[in-house]
């Protein structure tokens, strides 16, 4: 029996959308990939992050803020549905600086953005002493930090598992190990898989991360996205060392300190490199000298799903109305928005968020 929605991609983005739709009473079938697929959902840094998002597009800053504000309820709803905690902590986050001039430039940029956001951009600048009071293990090379109060972090793997559990628990059908080869319109849609499986649905959401590079054009999307590698490190479990997260390091709920991340344009190569690991380790030790004695237990390379301007893409297919592309780099930050607000956009209700700036119209045909 056809579902109301077929969702291509069972990562955090696809499952968040599926969860939101199920909560509105729609029937949903999720098609998920294999164990070895590129999965940003398994490799991301886990920040629920506002600062520095949308420096050139305040609508993106707003969208991130709206999601961050909805995150606590979203996490509570997953907990109630599954008994699973996703480790959400939203007590602010840092942008650490090792030089005065970078800090000053960043503050100037934030002031400009703050003005465009009608002043809703709650951050403060911490000098070395103030920072030391907040983070006793911070090192002397850190000259200051921007503390943004809307920032936080969660455990992205617990989030993925909770969503997988919640979607199934609410009656969603999830097919794993599927490689979607195409989508045919037949009044509704028929999603076709390499193994012969077909799934009928009234609407289709393409949220397959980098899988949309190949599939997108077949559904009428430009899908101008690319992989960007981020190497990430995590230490053995340590006693409390870091209170608030930053882009340099955060201490996860199990105790390990996670350190990130490189930004490398290397195509579909998700390996780690010794120079990459060493660079990140050096930066982390500069920020928190006590980390020098910590053992690295795991590292990985994950591929970001990036559009040319780094912003999400929300687009209905011009050639296949009822098919939607939903893709973004910040699937964790935006998970709450995707679950709570995107269903209105997919259904075109009066409450639909205005996502016009995130359409593919912004990518000129070259």
């Amino acid at each position: 029996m056809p579902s109301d929605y077929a969702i291509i991609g069972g990562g955090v983005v696809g499952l968040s959308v599926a969860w939101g739709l199920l909560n509105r009473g729609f029937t949903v079938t999720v098609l998920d990939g294999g164990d070895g697929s590129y999965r940003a959902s398994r490799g991301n840094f886990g920040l629920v992050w506002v600062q520095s998002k949308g420096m050139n597009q305040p609508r993106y800053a707003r969208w991130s803020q709206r999601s961050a504000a909805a995150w606590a309820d979203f996490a509570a709803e997953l907990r109630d549905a599954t008994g699973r905690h996703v480790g959400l902590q939203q007590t602010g986050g840092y942008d650490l600086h090792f030089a005065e001039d970078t800090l000053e430039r960043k503050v100037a940029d934030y002031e400009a953005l703050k003005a465009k956001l009608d002043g809703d951009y709650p951050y403060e600048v911490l000098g070395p002493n103030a920072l030391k009071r907040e983070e006793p293990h911070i090192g002397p090379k850190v000259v200051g930090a921007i503390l943004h109060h809307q920032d936080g972090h969660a455990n992205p793997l617990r989030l993925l598992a909770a969503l997988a559990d919640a979607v199934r628990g609410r009656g969603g059908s999830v097919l794993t190990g599927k490689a979607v080869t195409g989508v045919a319109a037949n009044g509704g849609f028929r999603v076709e898989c390499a193994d012969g499986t077909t799934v009928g649905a009234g609407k289709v959401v393409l949220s397959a991360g980098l899988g949309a590079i190949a599939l997108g054009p077949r559904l009428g999307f430009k899908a101008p996205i690319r992989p960007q590698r981020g190497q990430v490190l995590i230490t053995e479990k340590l006693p409390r060392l870091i209170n608030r997260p930053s882009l340099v390091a955060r201490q996860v709920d199990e105790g390990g300190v996670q350190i990130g991340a490189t930004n490398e344009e290397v195509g579909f190569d998700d390996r780690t490199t010794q120079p990459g690991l060493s660079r990140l380790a050096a930066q982390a030790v500069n920020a928190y000298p006590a980390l020098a004695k910590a053992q690295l237990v795991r590292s990985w390379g994950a591929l970001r799903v990036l559009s040319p301007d780094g912003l999400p893409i929300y687009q209905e297919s011009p050639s296949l109305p009822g098919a939607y592309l939903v893709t973004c780099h910040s699937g964790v930050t935006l998970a709450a928005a995707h679950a709570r607000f995107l269903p209105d956009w997919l259904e075109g209700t009066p409450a639909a968020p205005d996502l016009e700036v995130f359409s593919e119209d912004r990518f000129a045909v070259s």
Partner: protein
Amino acid sequence: MNQHDVIVVGAGPAGMAAAATAAGAGLRVALLDEQPRAGGQIYRDVDRVADRRGAILGADFTEGRRLTAGIRRDGIDHVDGAVVWAIEDGFRVSFTRDGCAAQATAPKLILATGALERPMPVPGWTLPGVMMAGAGQILLKQSGMLARRAVIVGSGPLLYLIAAQMVRAGTPPLALVETQTRGDLVRAGRHLAGALRGAGYLAKGLKMLGEIVRARVPRHAGATDIAIVGDDRAKAVTFRSGGRSRSIDCDTVFLHHGVVPNTQAARSIGVAHRWDADQHCFVPIVDAWGATDVDGVFIAGDSAGIGGAEVAEIAGRIAALKAAADLGRLAQADRDRQAAPLRRQRDRQSAVRPFLDAAYPPYAAALSPADTTCICRCEEVTAGDIRTAAGLGCIGPNQAKAFGRAGMGPCQGRYCGLTVTAILAEANGRTPDETGYFRIRPPLKPVTLGELAAMDDGDRDAAE
């Protein structure tokens, strides 16, 4: 370190033989080994220990001195205490020694990383006092230590070896709790003719059994429902055998039900593996020379599939001959002439394996443990957690790892990987090959951030 022609990882029989053969062909060899002294686990610390305990350990052990002597020669940089944590293209091998990170590079790589004992997750197996039988062997070989009140549990020839050595040293084990059945032995019978080509091996086995029987060590066969009980350390082994529940008080439990290839290094560089149904484990796919599908990478010894020390030594020599020929340092005709007798010898030495694999299969309840049994010792994940993950759509170990942390700890899945694959395969109705294995990434062994940071050359392009 300087550029070498070949890097050999592991100084057990395969690695030592490979290094000696490669150096003999004029290659510059870096032999990286994490132990302070050469020998691997089978010949652990043999140079220091052979004279002291040769009588207990037997000629099969003291034989290792021939191999350690072979690597003390020009052309071999034996780097002891070198813990390899990353292997990258090139090949660039990063390792830690004395708290400092270093690297070696070479166009050829021979992995001789040996075997691990097959994980044997039974209730209580994480308690202090419970060890793998190989650990008991190592304590005896290297440190001259014998457990006073030990029970040996599981199946396989190593069980008899350690029991016989304990008998010789005057501290026989309290009991052997054996999981194989008479049926296994009967089924193994069809391999007996082949095994007789390696009759020396069988004769040694019978001799060990004789020693154990003469010492009146109780043997319980076909044991099931095995558990170790105790609060903060092992106090007793409980099991069923002969239709009865039994309990044996003890201080030490040695577990063993076979050894499996240590594939961590090979997997970390993308070498293809396949499931070996006879040995119940994954093995790397290698050709007759030990070459893998990754150009320039060879695997020799037990890390390419369990064959034992003699087979490992031969495989090391064969791989080194191929590496030398590929580098243009040995004529192809010479390579083939030298390899031919080694191949015949290897076939003879391997003949006993099918019989042993069939006669001493793994303990079934440890391949598919009860839900409450801990299977990932590092992160304390149970078999039931893995089955729950399967129910949430985890068709392979990497998604299951993300969902439940199995394999995320410092051992990198060495002692849970095969169990996770087996449980998922069973739960999903898929084969082990379809299910797959953990993606192994650096660090192969933990390395401190301080060591990593010290290697940073300040190149800002690498990050941000």
